[in-house]
């Protein structure tokens, strides 16, 4: 068993070096593919984290009509909102609180100018409605607008929804790119193995004629494909580990603001590395498997 494994490993390694040029092109293709996969994964997982943060704090501001500011009306509106599916929490803000918040936030310097508005406060009684999922924002907002006594609804979610949409687009484009690159890498491995098979045609003929099992004949080629995959994943793994740790240190874990915080390097880079090596092995194996099946199994 061990003797056989050693033989397959030796033949596989020899195969890689027998056609160094071709192997190099396959390894390069695997390498580029994995580098892009790594980049894609780093961007999407970090954006995912940001979008989760935003989604987690999605709120709708509900303004109540002036004529419905009675205790009874406010209670009724609150109850009706709370019945809507997807509503997690409702906080009431009085018009005085809103006025004060507005003044404090925007006109710190000219507070006196707004003193005159204290008696005729133009703000509405309002509710801050927290919801479960960003995708429900519009639906819930429309629903709330239908409640008697509701003047208007606002949600700052438009921009965050856009972010979610952008993230989805990045995912789709990235996935398409990764699939295309994986296919190209598989195709190059496929061709490398095809050449190895033709170079070893005599040995294959002898093996078949003296009754070597199919597995024995095919194993060295599969090993060769896997070795190409592993070698191809080395540089992307190193760049991912050291590059990400460097980026994290340089940015101190934040990009632009606290909202855009990066994922902690450990165990994140290790997980990414395992994905990269696994993908490399898979690409190499699939490429050689397809080649072996096409060129070795044609005949009985």
């Amino acid at each position, binding site marked *: 068993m061990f003797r056989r494994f050693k033989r397959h490993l030796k033949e596989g390694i020899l195969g890689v070096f027998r056609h160094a040029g071709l192997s190099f092109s396959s390894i390069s293709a695997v390498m580029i593919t994995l580098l892009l996969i790594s980049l894609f994964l780093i961007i999407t997982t970090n954006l995912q984290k940001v979008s989760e943060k935003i989604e987690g704090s999605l709120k709708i501001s509900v303004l109540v009509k002036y004529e419905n500011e009675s205790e009874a009306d406010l209670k009724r509106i609150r109850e009706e909102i709370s019945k809507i599916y997807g509503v997690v929490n409702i906080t009431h803000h009085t018009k005085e609180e809103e006025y004060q918040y507005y003044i404090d936030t925007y006109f710190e310097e000219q507070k006196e100018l707004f003193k005159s508005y204290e008696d005729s406060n133009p703000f509405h009684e309002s509710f801050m409605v927290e919801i479960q999922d960003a995708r429900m924002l519009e639906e819930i907002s429309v629903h709330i607008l239908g409640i008697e006594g509701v003047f208007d609804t606002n949600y700052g979610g438009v921009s965050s929804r856009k972010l979610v949409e952008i993230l989805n687009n990045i995912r789709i484009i990235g996935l398409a790119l990764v699939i295309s690159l994986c296919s190209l890498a598989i195709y190059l491995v496929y061709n490398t193995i095809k050449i190895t098979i033709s170079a070893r045609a005599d040995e294959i003929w*002898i093996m078949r004629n003296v009754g070597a*099992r199919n597995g024995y004949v095919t194993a060295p080629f599969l090993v060769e494909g896997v070795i190409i995959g592993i070698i191809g994943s080395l540089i992307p793994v190193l760049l991912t580990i050291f590059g990400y740790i460097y980026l994290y240190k340089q940015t101190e874990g934040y990009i632009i603001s606290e909202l855009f915080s990066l994922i902690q390097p450990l165990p994140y880079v290790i997980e990414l590395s395992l994905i990269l090596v696994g993908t490399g092995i898979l690409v190499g194996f699939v490429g050689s498997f397809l080649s072996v099946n096409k060129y070795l199994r044609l005949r*009985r």
Partner: protein
Amino acid sequence: MIKIENVSKVYKNGTHALNNINLFIKSGEFVYITGSTGSGKSTLIKLLNGEEIPTKGLVEVNKVNVGILKHNKVPLYRRNIGVVFQDYRLLKSKTVYENVAYALEVVDKKPEEIISRVREVLKLVGLNDKANSFPDQLSGGQQQRVAIARAIANKPKILIADEPTGNLDPKMSDEIITLLEKINIEEKTTILMVTHDFIIVKKRPKRTISLEQGHITRDMIFKGVKNV
């Protein structure tokens, strides 16, 4: 041992390679198979080797119905059949010893078993002293001996020699036939030898099966003694 009943082989391109042939070869026989190009000799070998399956009829070798043999069983079946070709098909980068040992290594024989069997067959084919030579350092006859040694290394019950003397001069051809006869007797191996060379057939008379356009036209021992 080899039973061929009503066998026909039609290839996908419509070529009728064999037409309803019947044949029985006993264990331990030495048989010549003759015929011109396209007569069906190669197809017959491929059917016996399990490389092709008959379109119709039964191909039975050592009680194994080759036509219904599953794909994964073919390698094991082939261990009972050795094949030698006109062009030797030796691995040029390996020595004589390694060429023969290779046939045993790939069927997972133990190292000690390989050493003793390789020595045994090299002695049998008379190439003990050439064990460390490379194929290019040998004459055509010697290379064919290596190919024969490799083919019988796994002790097959049948040895198919496809034009083994095709590239050799009469003297070397004679030596190869002598060797095949020796294997036939000493190893009790059934030998099927495909040949165009009627000088050999007449000089060393044995059962001769002639094929023409997919039919068996003659099955006899030369000197006019009819066998079937």
